[in-house]
């Protein structure tokens, strides 16, 4: 590693060779404005707002895209730079729909912040905003408003580099250049996984989730409706960011109180359904292992792959349609939850399921799409009526006039409100795997997993693909066939990593028994419905909060959740049983690649 030294604003900075001028400046706390730059993404250098002066050079230098060099002298503030940046901002604003008051991203917009900082007006240049741009609202999950697009290509790079999907691409050139889709098809017609990573990487309001809160307010206001909300584990560790809390603050109790005050008839916990998923999926894994290892059934597909992440599910349906047999047939926790609410919950509470509106509060954009999949009506109704993002929940809380920071801690309502630490960690990459291993190991051996305080650390963390092995020893008699077997598992997050795993599966060389795949980097805590921005630093803090909540839970294995025991005793009877099969499992479909 070679180090080099340059001067930035007369301060000597020593950095590793290859470091950009922007990062070198950060090192000495010199802030340079950026727009097209995002630390998750490759360098584009196209917005040009980060220009700096390099002594001895006539033109200005894009600091994000230029490696620092030994002996370089850089100025980050000068009349030349200020004029240039102001001009660039004016140009961006001149092709932008500046009706900020009606924009969903207002006050959380990088363009708006910089426009204010540089005091940009609408008079300096003529508007070159294309007239009659229509907002594409065709997708269940994502709205695309080209009038807000600044062509920074963050979404394009996200979709290509992080997700390997390439749903969004740059089309045309010059004054017609824009971010569009294959053949300019609408967002519901293209190969899009609805993961929403484009949204969380968009600096403006060009890409947003499709909002459903008006419909939900209507339901809340309707006295005939019993409106149930369940919130995913990742929501409670991120929602606080919408209210000025430090990243990584758990606000579970306040969130529950807020939702109750807003008028939801019951506030339940998706984590309950996560525990339920573990029971079903764990038994499915055991059944598959037995069929493969004992019965030598050649039709059994291993590795089995998780199906909790609807973005991932749609990805495999498009990209690997011949390998859908590897997916667990388990529905995602959200959909298990919906199906159970409209059957079990309705029955126990004596409520007509047709009067129940089941809302899911999710860190996710794809959950909106998933709720509307035709497969997801096994209760006889649409199992989940609407999916809300963490951001929408934040907006609804604000709309209710609640002072979030002053709220007391509340408790989830019962029947489907109890959860374990295992359910909580579903929010982080590796969490489903860890939760599954905790239960599966205990079921097979009668003992807890041999990791200190149940923390299976090899499956945790932000590494793109993680591997682990766990050996079953001294198995209970009924699982003696697993004696000495080492279960090999892998975890991938981000669809580019999923592709690596799937290429092995498709080639028949995958060495694993069980694989967890999440569409979004970091898992659900980095989901497309989470507060913006999300970067690795943010992912790490939200993940820490998830594991902290896990440690605080009195019960940390799904099969020990008393409400889970209850639902099996009183309703489902047995894992993988007839009712489970009808309500909690699903089928997949093959989709085209264009």
């Amino acid at each position, binding site marked *: 590693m070679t180090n080099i030294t340059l001067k930035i604003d007369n301060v000597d900075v020593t950095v590793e060779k290859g470091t950009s001028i922007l990062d070198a400046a950060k090192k000495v706390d010199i802030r340079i404005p950026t727009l097209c730059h995002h630390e998750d993404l490759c360098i584009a250098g196209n917005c040009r707002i980060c220009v700096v002066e390099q002594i001895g050079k006539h033109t200005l230098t894009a600091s994000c895209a230029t490696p620092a060099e030994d002996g370089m002298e850089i100025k980050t503030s000068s009349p030349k730079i200020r004029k240039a940046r102001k001009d660039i901002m004016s140009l961006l604003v001149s092709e932008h729909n500046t009706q900020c008051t009606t924009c969903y991203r207002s006050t959380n917009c990088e363009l708006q912040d910089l426009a204010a900082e540089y005091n940009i007006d609408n008079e300096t240049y003529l508007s*070159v905003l294309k007239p009659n741009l229509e907002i594409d609202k065709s997708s269940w999950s994502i709205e695309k408003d080209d009038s807000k697009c600044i*062509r920074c290509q963050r979404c394009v790079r996200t979709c290509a580099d992080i997700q390997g999907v390439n749903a969004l691409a740059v089309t045309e050139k010059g004054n017609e250049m824009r971010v569009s889709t294959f053949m300019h098809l609408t967002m519901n017609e293209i190969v899009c996984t609805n993961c929403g990573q484009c949204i969380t990487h968009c600096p403006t309001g060009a890409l947003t989730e499709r909002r459903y809160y008006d419909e939900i307010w209507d339901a809340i206001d309707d006295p005939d409706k019993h409106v149930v909300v369940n919130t995913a584990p990742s929501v409670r560790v991120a929602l606080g960011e919408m209210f000025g809390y430090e990243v990584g603050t758990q606000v579970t109790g306040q969130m529950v109180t807020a939702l109750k005050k807003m008028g939801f008839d019951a506030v339940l916990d998706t984590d309950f359904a996560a525990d339920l998923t573990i029971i079903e999926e764990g038994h499915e894994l055991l059944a598959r292992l037995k069929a493969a290892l004992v019965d030598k059934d050649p039709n059994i597909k291993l590795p089995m792959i998780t199906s909790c992440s609807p973005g991932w599910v749609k990805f495999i349906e498009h990209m690997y349609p011949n390998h859908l047999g590897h997916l667990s047939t388990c529905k995602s926790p959200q959909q298990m939850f919906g199906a159970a609410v409209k059957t079990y919950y309705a029955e126990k509470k004596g409520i007509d399921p047709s009067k129940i509106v089941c809302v899911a509060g999710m860190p996710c954009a794809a959950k909106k799409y998933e709720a509307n999949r035709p497969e997801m009506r096994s209760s006889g109704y649409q199992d989940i009526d609407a999916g809300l993002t963490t951001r929408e929940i934040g907006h609804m809380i604000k709309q209710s006039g609640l002072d979030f920071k002053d709220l007391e801690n509340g408790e989830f309502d019962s029947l489907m409100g109890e959860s374990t630490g295992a359910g909580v960690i579903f929010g982080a990459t590796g969490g489903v795997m860890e939760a599954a291993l905790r239960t599966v190991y205990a079921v097979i051996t009668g003992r807890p997993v041999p990791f200190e305080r149940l923390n299976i650390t090899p499956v945790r963390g932000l590494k793109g693909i993680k591997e682990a092995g766990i050996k079953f020893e001294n198995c209970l008699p009924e699982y003696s066939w697993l004696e000495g077997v080492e279960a090999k598992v892998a975890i991938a997050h981000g669809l580019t990593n999923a592709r690596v795993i799937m290429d092995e599966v498709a080639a028949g060389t995958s060495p694993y028994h069980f694989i967890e795949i999440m569409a979004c980097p970091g898992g659900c805590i980095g989901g497309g419905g989470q507060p913006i921005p999300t970067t690795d630093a943010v992912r790490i803090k939200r993940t820490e909060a998830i594991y902290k909540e896990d440690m605080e839970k009195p019960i940390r294995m799904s099969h020990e959740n008393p409400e889970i025991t209850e639902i099996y005793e009183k309703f489902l009877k047995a894992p993988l049983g007839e009712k489970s099969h009808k309500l909690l499992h699903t089928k997949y479909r093959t989709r085209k690649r264009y």
Partner: protein
Amino acid sequence: MTNIPKKADILFSAYSVEPYQILKDAMKRKKEDIIQELLDSGLRGRGGAGFPTGMKWKFGAAEKADQKYVICNADEGEPGTFKDKKLLTDVPRKTISGMAICAYVTGATKGFIYLRAEYRYLLASLEKEIEVFEQKAKEFGLDFEIKIFMGAGAYVCGEETALIESMEGKRGEPRNKPPYPIQNGYLGKPTIVNNVETLASVSMVCRLGAEEYKKLGTSDQKGSKLFSISGDSPKEGVHELELGMKVSDFVTEYGDGDTKAIQVGGVAGYCIPRKKFESTIIGEGQTTGGSTLIFNSTRSMYRVLHNYLDFYAEESCGQCTPCRVGCQQLLKGIEAVKAGTKPPKYLDQLMKLSNTMNLTSKCGLGQSVTNSFTTIVENFREEMIF
């Protein structure tokens, strides 16, 4: 006193020596000697940017890599230039020979001719020429093959990194520099990109020797240069001229007697008004790709500039803000001033904007808009307003 611009007859001269003989002779020489010869000759890139060719090759030769490439940039897209087309039609072996010498000197084993989409009709004849060359290469023991890559019509793909992106199957957009193609070019390998005329000139430098070659030209610009002359001229066409002529002499020879202004270097170049004909020497201070448009007094310079900006607004790749939006603003801006919806002083704002575009654009396209914009607006301001 009027001097007739000195014509040169090097590039289009008949193959007095078979070009592949030049290659054969070159291959007998040390690689460093050839680089030195090019450095001594003062030959600069003939595509417009004017980077010293010997220097580029020196860097290319110094790069260590398992694969290097030579690309002949035949995406001749600058409005008003058509010299490369003529070279490839009349004397393609001079260019191909130049590519092969480059391969020999730098150690590249694969070469491409990036042929402008509109020159597809040349494809068959060039492929035949390449067959001839490959026979010769085999004979000389040179491990170098050439393929033709067809462009698709974007102006920006004449910019070498956009050209490489398009060859890689990507959208033709300029890359961030550094790294330069010489370090990280086609498929991430060191790549030497030279213009058609540059490569042909290399053959000529090798044949004539640096001493002889640099007798032509001025202290600043050496050798001969092809000029694509068009517009209000009775002598439209490609002319090989010695560098270093006064505009007044040039206009006397090639104008129609009523020349109002000339545009040197295409839309990316400069406008020279009549009052500066006597004091300006073509190619001094700034290099040129050789496009020379001549306008007589019947031409509206507003229409000329409008045409240029219209072209730019469409041909900007669109990725960087100053170029994408700036071009549209300049175009809309002069329309507004002409229509009276913006005051004449708005032109000053636009001049500042073109300066910002020059300072901040990612590639030469956006950076050079200011050249034609400021020289036309400064010299013909009243035509912009009235």
